[in-house]
């Protein structure tokens, strides 16, 4: 029962955070020098058009009233018009966001799976050559920004060796599956269109790995250091002294407690992945909401910027709640923490 109150409190807390975030974004969009209405219709428009639009956008009323209208519209899914695409921002997001989601989820799986695997490998062979090699690679991962990885991968695998495609989500010849979830790999699986599935997967590899390198490095470093710390704990020495074979200790009694810190920073690393998506999508011409975000930012398209950042915030909060639940299931100390008696 205490775990459910823990989750409910966590969700309520996130709603407040989201509200706070919407205020921050609203303030950002309003401190812009110049009149948003003029920006919307362009410099050559006649004055009366600008005045009419200002009234519609409630620009003449005090800031908090403007915020109220903006929030009310946002809650109804109306994020205003985008200057770049001349369409409601909500529609743009519906079209572009699934691509970013697919890319970041793919990177997320590589990051979690690969990170934990590499972490275990280097912890098991601690201080042997394989451990040092993996540590150097993971170090490079932490240090190099993903857009540099993206360029190197583009250069090496894309152009020089030409193993993998470097543009868009599907090769021109392949017919895309019907959009159910918007994620091509999932849709093609659901509709049984295997060629599209493998082609989409092939397109995902380069940008996905470039995006995941940073997180992969962090995850493996955390797994490795937690495992080597836990090796010295009493419950491991006690398990050894009771005759439990080393293999079982490593696989079971050491691994599970060591995964908890790894998974709890997964939320943070996933945030890093979403942020870097902005750059990787530009380099790989990936039609995601982040590339859309960059274009709108360059052209100061306020409503679109607000829409992109808000969606990013929502996804990040949802991911964090999921991570907290998984950690709660894994670690009884959180789930069943007894009342703090005197």
């Amino acid at each position, binding site marked *: 029962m205490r775990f*459910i*109150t823990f989750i*409910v409190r966590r969700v309520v807390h996130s709603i407040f955070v989201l509200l706070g975030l919407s205020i921050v974004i609203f303030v950002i969009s309003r401190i812009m020098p110049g009149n948003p209405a003029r920006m919307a219709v362009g410099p050559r428009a006649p004055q009366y058009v600008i005045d009419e639009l200002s009234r519609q956008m409630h620009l003449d009323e005090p800031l908090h009233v403007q915020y109220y209208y903006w929030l009310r519209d946002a809650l109804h899914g109306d994020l205003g018009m985008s200057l770049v695409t001349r369409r409601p921002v909500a529609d743009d997001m519906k079209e572009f966001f699934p691509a970013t989601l697919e890319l970041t989820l793919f990177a997320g799986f590589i990051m979690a799976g690969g990170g934990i695997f590499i972490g275990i490998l280097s912890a098991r062979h601690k201080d042997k050559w394989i451990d040092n090699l993996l540590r150097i690679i993971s170090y490079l991962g932490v240090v190099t920004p993903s857009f540099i990885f993206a360029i190197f991968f583009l250069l090496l695998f894309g152009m020089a060796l030409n193993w993998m495609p470097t543009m868009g989500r599907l090769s021109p010849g392949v017919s895309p599956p019907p959009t159910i979830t918007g994620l091509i790999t999932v849709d093609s699986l659901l509709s049984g269109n295997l060629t599209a599935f493998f082609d989409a997967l092939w397109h995902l590899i380069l940008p996905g790995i470039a995006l995941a390198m940073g997180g992969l490095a962090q995850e493996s470093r955390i797994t490795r250091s937690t495992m080597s710390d836990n090796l010295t704990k009493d419950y491991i020495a006690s398990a050894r002294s009771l005759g439990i074979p080393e293999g079982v200790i490593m696989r079971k009694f050491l691994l599970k407690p060591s995964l908890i810190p790894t998974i709890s920073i997964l939320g943070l690393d996933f945030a890093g992945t979403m942020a870097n998506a902005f750059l990787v999508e530009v380099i790989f011409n990936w039609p995601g909401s982040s590339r859309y975000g960059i274009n709108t930012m360059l052209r100061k398209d306020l409503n679109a910027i607000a829409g992109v950042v808000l969606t990013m915030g929502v996804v990040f909060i949802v991911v964090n709640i999921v991570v907290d639940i998984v950690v709660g299931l894994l670690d009884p100390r959180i789930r069943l923490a007894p*009342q*703090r*008696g*005197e």
Partner: protein
Amino acid sequence: MKPTDILTFTDLKKYFVIGYNGILKREPITVKAVDGVSFAVREGETFGLVGESGSGKSTVAYTTIGMYRPTEGSISFRGQSLFDGNKGRPLALKKEIQIVFQDPGSSLNPRRTIKQILELPLQIHRRDENRLEQVVQLLEMVELPPDYMYKYPQMVGGGEKQMVAIARALATGPSFIILDEPTSALDVSIQGKIINLLIRLQNEFHLSYLFITHDLSLMRNVASRVAIMYLGKICEVAEAAEFFRNPYHPYTRMLLSSIPVVSEEEEKLKPQKIISTGEIPSPVNIPSGCSFHLRCPQKMEICSQVDPVMVEMEEGHTVRCHLYGQPD
């Protein structure tokens, strides 16, 4: 002339809210850490407070020095209440009452030298004299060499750290010191030095002590009067020799018989083997009636319904138990 009381506790209560039940109705879960404690410490006396974990003895200490505000009841120092109004305690009163904590490792700031640690109370309470000389005096008072002042706490042993903590308590020239398990974290061979130092300081500066510990053998050699606490309430109070020679309360007897002793005479003194059974209940849901009835070998019907009241058996020896008759 009957010795006057320096510190008087009247029906002190301290409850902690540590969480809420249910999502909507949110009724608080309270821990009754101290649940109606009354006793008085006389001038120049060492009053002993003994009890196991969850008994509330440390909460009594922390409330006295102002870390917590009492939920009910009062504590008065030479007639002056320590908690009047909600503004803080006047500096003059803070000067008079000091504390030495149990764990020397956490009661001294690892990032400050011993000189800086001892200077803090001097700055606040005794601004007049030459600061460096005072620090050297304080170190000599606790038999530490003057050059210790430039060391950091982790450079000295556990016993020496506790001596620095005692020096800090003496710095304001107090008249009352609370000793919260001062030697529990130390080895037996170092404990003797600290205890004898405290006794010497008591005579030299006419100090009164509230001595808290779970070690009854130590208590026998330090305290003039002893009170034993269980789950936030006092079960028995007696003059030290009487407390060990003729304990009334079943819990006191159970505690005495559980102590591993070193000599034959001590073995004879221990009450016949009372087998301690059961776990100490959690202070969140205290058993009904007398809170000890679940573990009491001489449990009666009434014990699980009515909570007994303090009764005076002899001059200065009171006990709270149905075995010894209750005022009707």
